């Protein structure tokens, strides 16, 4: 009975990637602190990257990792700009609350 359980298939990695993505999504929808919201988007990046690497490994193709190099680049650029935005927003209202900016809607 122990033998099949140690066989890790692609499906396990995809399940884990989906779970991490959904956890990041729930965190993004739920929290109001701007920085934690951005951290949750980074978590979604992680989950997608895990799926890319898993597919690349299971098809013995390095292009999954090549794609993740570019995703990492874009994630770094996005994190820099997002944090600069957060700093600028914090200077305006002196709070990290996302609800304070809800008057921007409409």
């Amino acid at each position: 009975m122990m033998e099949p359980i140690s066989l890790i298939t692609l499906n396990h990695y995809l399940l884990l990637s989906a779970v991490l993505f959904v956890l990041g999504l729930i965190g993004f929808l739920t929290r109001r602190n701007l920085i934690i919201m951005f951290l949750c988007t980074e978590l979604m990046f992680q989950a997608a990257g895990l799926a890319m690497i898993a597919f690349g490994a299971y098809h013995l193709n390095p292009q999954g990792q090549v794609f993740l190099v570019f995703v990492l680049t874009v994630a770094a650029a996005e994190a820099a700009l997002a944090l600069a935005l957060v700093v600028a927003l914090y200077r305006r209202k002196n709070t990290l609350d996302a609800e304070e900016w809800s008057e921007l809607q409409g």
Partner: protein
Amino acid sequence: MPLVNMTILYAACVVGAVGVFLALPRRGSRLALLGSIIAGGALGAAFLALVPRAVGAESGDVPGFMFYTMAFIATGGAIRMITHPRPVYAALYFILVVIATAGLFLLLAAEFMAFALVIVYAGAILVTYLFVIMLAHETPDEEDWSVLTEYDANAREPLAACIAGFVLLATLLGVGYRGLAPDAAPPTSSLAAIEREHEDLALMPMKVQRALADADLLPEGGTVVVVDPVGQSAMIELETGALQAVEIPDSLRVENVESIGLSLFNEFPVSLELAGVILFMAMLGAVVLARKPRSPSPAGSTAEALGEPG
């Protein structure tokens, strides 16, 4: 007979939703730890639902306990990250998630990406997040619910978020596991992979030369001219100008970093340049965005700034 037990997966989604809902921060809630344990148990049940039914399946190269350890550390860190009321701890738990994901990359033989993830993500991006949290913090020192800021202590609309998130998860899993291959086991080799490795070796004559020299197969003074991509042999040009074919040893493999590098520079050179442009844009944008708003300066102060008298 279904290959994946979907009812267990859907039930695990429901239990996970309940667990995450309980774990989300609410004022006066003491059920956070219980929620995390319930969610972890749901993940374990989901993994059990994926046990392959193939008879006579041999265990793959990956030891199961390493994958499960990393998976539970990653999920536990993620749950704690989205439910912790204080942003510094959320960033630290995310660093834990990044390290666990790097461990999973190592299990998938992607060591370059594992190290790049730890260096770039945990080492640069998350440290920048911590800097900004320190710059913009409002939370006081005591771990006291009444003192935490209101938007940190309360999750907004946790029920709707959990329902939406886990319905999405159930849909993803339901669609993704439809039409499964009977054994999505880790492959040991495939024809396309072998061809790719031969092509990569054909692009690296110096690597072949060094390997042949190490294995004492290289004739004196010979340099590798052409590596035959299919025949696994290399043409060596001797000092006399004559050509000789030497068999490449089977133990010569293309490393992970080399294959990524070859793929990047041969197949995606434009994307590489564009990535540099994106980083440059981000740097300029961050500098401009984070600048303090300058007050309008009359001409006199400009002269002062230039150092001229008067």
